[in-house]
């Protein structure tokens, strides 16, 4: 009997060949589509309305959201470091990176809550309010999930020995973190910036 | 092409240029697709016969078969281009028909759950005609219909004159219709709009321009005054009962617009958006308990005794 012996092949990997890595990509494709549809909603409603945002909408304050954005983008650098470390199997560095990012995530959520409390209209005020609140809400929800995931892995890495195959979980969390950051960029523009740049009326 | 099929609401019995053009286009499609159908079925049967006779399958993809499939693809593309071109041409013809005439006659059709409000606007407000569930048009000229809705989406469909167009909240849609000869064309709401979507029909009545003018002038007149004491009592009732919360009768204190305008209700052929023939018995049944006839209809049962009902009916039936 001819055979193909695979006993030499590694068991599990932490790189982009892993099944979970691909699954994670699939999930991000789905969520990315959803964010794209939210954007499309904004653009569509802008197209069909003569005054946009409605005159009653105050100019948003840019300070908090901008700090938040910068913080989140910078945290991606830390994540990238942790990500690389995971690929090399350097657990200490992974722990440090995740700890920093969890802190950033929590700070982000606090600032986000403050920014949301200052929005000045409700989701039930008008369609503009509906789409803005839904966008911000969806992203916040994802941010909570990403922070929670990072926190959970951090705790796990502190109480248990991290096996080689679990390094993949850290890497997928990192990729998700980039995803949540990148998907916010266009929303930062439409939610906070656009009312300053162009108003239809 | 009508094959003896019933024609009162049929796309196969066009009565105006719009519907006629579309039917012509449909015939082109029907012929082309029938040819395609026959060819493909014949080929399938032939393949089955061949395949069953074969002792040994031909394993590779032969050049001959590649050619055959390629030809099929090319023919498909050619057929589709033909269809596309004729379709777009008809679309343009139908879409531009009637446009560009400044003194176009305009009718506003407004959808309600589950009846049609029909208005003939006039620069002079008192000359504006309001009626329900009936569109009267003069023959031989394009008429512009402006479509609006008070509540959900409806769709106006007069198969013998034109295809359908939706009535959408916040928008005004426009279509042009034209009837070539006098006639009565049934029409129906085509977009599901709730409980009584099935009973939201109307009639289009095409009349010679002369007859149409006569009709319009009559409709512009205020409602008939009661001619008998019974009718007078009926009017009193009408104005005392909740009727005036919903209905209008010009020349009286009733001017609500939640329900059909009743100024000339007795001149209409049907009641309740084509649900009933307009006659004494049906009117009596409707006024005493509308929802029993048309479950869900947004007109409440109005309690009154027999004589009162008769008086009220006498009044309504005088609203010619």
């Amino acid at each position, binding site marked *: 009997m*001819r055979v193909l012996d695979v006993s030499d092949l590694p068991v599990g990997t932490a790189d982009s060949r892993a099944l979970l890595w691909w699954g994670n990509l699939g999930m991000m494709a789905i969520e990315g589509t959803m964010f794209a549809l939210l954007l499309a909603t904004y653009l569509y409603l802008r197209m069909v309305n003569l005054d946009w945002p409605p005159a009653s909408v105050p100019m948003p304050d840019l300070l908090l959201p901008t700090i938040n954005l910068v913080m989140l983008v910078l945290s991606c650098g830390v994540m990238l470091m942790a990500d690389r470390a995971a690929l090399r199997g350097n657990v200490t560095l992974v722990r440090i990176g995740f700890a920093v990012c969890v802190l950033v995530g929590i700070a982000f959520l606090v600032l986000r809550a403050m920014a949301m409390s200052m929005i000045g209209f409700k989701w039930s005020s008008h369609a503009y309010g509906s789409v803005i609140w839904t966008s911000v809400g969806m992203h916040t929800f994802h941010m909570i999930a990403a922070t929670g995931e990072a926190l959970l892995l951090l705790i796990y890495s502190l109480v248990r020995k991290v096996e080689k195959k679990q390094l993949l979980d850290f890497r997928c969390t990192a990729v998700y973190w980039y995803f949540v950051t990148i998907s916010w960029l266009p929303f930062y523009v439409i939610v906070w910036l656009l009312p300053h740049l162009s108003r239809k009326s | 092409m009508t094959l003896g099929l019933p024609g009162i609401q049929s796309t196969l019995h066009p009565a105006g240029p719009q519907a006629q053009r579309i039917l012509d286009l449909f015939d082109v499609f029907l012929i082309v697709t029938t040819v395609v159908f026959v060819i493909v079925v014949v080929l399938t049967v032939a393949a089955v016969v061949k395949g069953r006779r074969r002792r040994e399958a031909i394993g590779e993809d032969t050049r001959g078969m590649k050619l055959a499939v390629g030809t099929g693809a090319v023919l498909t593309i050619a057929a589709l281009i033909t269809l596309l071109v004729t379709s777009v041409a008809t679309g343009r013809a139908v879409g531009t028909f009637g446009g560009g005439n400044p003194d176009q006659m305009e009718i506003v059709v407004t959808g309600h759950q589950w009846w049609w409000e029909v208005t003939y606007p006039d620069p002079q407000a008192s000359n504006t005609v309001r009626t329900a569930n009936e569109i009267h048009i003069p023959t031989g000229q394009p008429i512009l219909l402006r479509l609006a809705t008070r509540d959900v989406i409806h769709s106006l469909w007069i198969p013998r004159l034109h295809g359908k167009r939706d009535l959408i909240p916040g928008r005004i849609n426009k279509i042009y219709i034209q009837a070539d000869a006098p006639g009565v064309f049934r029409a129906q709401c085509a977009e599901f709009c709730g409980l009584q979507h099935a009973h939201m029909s109307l009639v289009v009545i095409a009349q010679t321009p002369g007859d149409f003018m006569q009709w319009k002038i009559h409709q512009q007149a205020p409602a008939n005054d009661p001619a008998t004491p019974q009718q007078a009592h009926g009017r009193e009732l009408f104005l005392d009962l909740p009727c005036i919360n919903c209905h209008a009768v010009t020349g009286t204190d009733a001017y609500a617009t939640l329900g059909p305008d009743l100024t000339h209700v007795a001149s209409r052929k049907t009641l309740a958006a084509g649900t009933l023939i307009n006659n004494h018995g049906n009117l009596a049944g409707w006024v005493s308990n509308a929802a029993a006839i048309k479950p869900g209809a947004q007109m409440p049962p109005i309690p009154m005794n027999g004589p009162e009902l008769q008086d009220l009916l006498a009044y309504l039936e005088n609203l010619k």
Partner: protein
Amino acid sequence: MTEERGQTEAAMEATWAPARGFLGWFTEVDHKRIGLRYIVTALCFFTLGGIEAAIMRLQLAGPERHVVGPDFYNQLFTVHGSTMMFLFAVPVMEGIAIYLVPLMVGTRNVAFPKLNAFGYFIYLFGGLFLYTMFFCGAGPDAGWFAYTPLSGPQFSPGKRIDTWSQMITYTELSALVVSVEITVTAFKQRAPGMSLNRVPLFVWSMVVTSFMIMFAMPAVMVDSGYLALDRLVATHFFNRPEGGDPIFYQHLFWFFGHPEVYIIFIPALGFISSIVTAFTKRKVFGYSVMVASLVFTGFMGFGLWVHHMFATGLPQLGQSFFTAASMMISIPTGVQIFCWIGTIWHGRLTIRTPMLYVLAFFFDFLIGGLTGVMLASVPINWQVHDTYFVVAHFHYVLIAGAVFPLFGALHFWFPKWTGRMYGEGLSRVAFWLVFIGFNLVFFPMHILGMIGMPRRVYTYQPQLGWGGLNQLATLGVLPLALGILLMFVNFALSRRRGAPAGPNPWDADTLEWSVSSPPPPYNYLHVPTVAGGHALWDAAPDQPVVVGMRTDHREVLVTKAVDAEPSHREELPSPSIWPFLVALTTGITLCGAIFYAWWFTMGTVLTAFALIGWFWPKREPLPEAS
């Protein structure tokens, strides 16, 4: 040698042992069992949907009948349409894919078995939720696409529409997880040697379907999500006076809805390729053209949605574009049909019941496809949109285009799934009943549409003259239902008493036919290798098998996406209760939210805990030093 084999077998039996007992039903992760569950559940919903249809047909059999009233009738067609689309057609295709794709690519389970179990439970809960509400008299009643503002807070108070929008969320969640699994399994777990140009056409069709699901289903979740928000927390997405737009609802729905019909149809094309190959004893003509057609259809499917909205009065030019696109999509479909005809022409054809259904597909789907081309013409569409002509079109494409191939597939793989043959004679009787009944029911509807009958009317007046054709349509349900019933009876009887099938009763070509029927829990004792596009026909007499994988862990071989070179091994999870629990908490969240908004928050927290349980790695026995 045989002793060695026996030992391996025993070890594999132990490692891959299915979950047993009552609890085992909730913890099972075997793709075959979950796939079968999907299929059986979907067929139950099909029966329910069919019974609803039969009641509708009774009501419409003549003018002004009083079998049901308008309120119940509206629930009937809404629940019928939603059941058939969301609880039957999509899940049944997914179930078959879950069963077959891992076998066809030569692996031991799907990539994410726990997720797979979760997907099934969430689907089941969605269906049960809809039917619970329906039997309580609160079935949705605004049609299977629930247009606003009719479905909005103002015109549909109560819980009916909320039920519908949550059912969507459940079932789409399930479809989405399946799509990810199938894609990853098909790209990363193929047997060594099965490079992309050797992948069975059925697997290709499921890959294309899965991609379509990933990009289409989010649209309906967003859409029904907005609707739920409009209804529950007073947002204004579709409320024109406050700046929303009801037409936007339609755009979003059909951006999903059109791909949805191809999501149902493309797997059926895969069945046909499998069946035609087996019964003509030759490869399908033009493999690469077939794959290209599938991919092209998948892409084009996203560019047609406006053809459902021609009557809304959008600008003419834009509409012509969608006419052109709709016609273009006929080209790949036509090419595939030509390729199959060519295959049959050059093949050695035997006709068994699966092949009969395929031939019925050719005949009847053709009619449906051609009426689709008519509908795609804007002026024709203005006349026949929302009439029984459309009802006829979509039953021809859905039933003849997807359900006939499905019935063919059920017969074709029945021996694989149960180990026994179905009864051929009975199945032919059933076939003819279904075929004749189907045409009797739905052909007259074309004419009814042409002579003015709108869809979704609970009754019509006698003077319209639609009585006769409607009566004919109703009569046709009798043979149709009888045929389907007979098919089910045949399956039930044959499951126990049918002749033993052996591994490959059809002498077919794909890998699943190389293992016993039904396959063992681990599918392949040794992961196979593949030498051609038809794994079994092209195999060398001494085709190598893969050795060196652990038998004491649930290991699968991961290969490279394009050429399927072995890459590494991965361990898959054992049975687990967490998927069920997460589905349960998600279910509670979704159905609770429509009654009390705060349930949503509470349910989410609960779900978060369940998810932690799911993902928390199990403590491993210390690995041997290696």
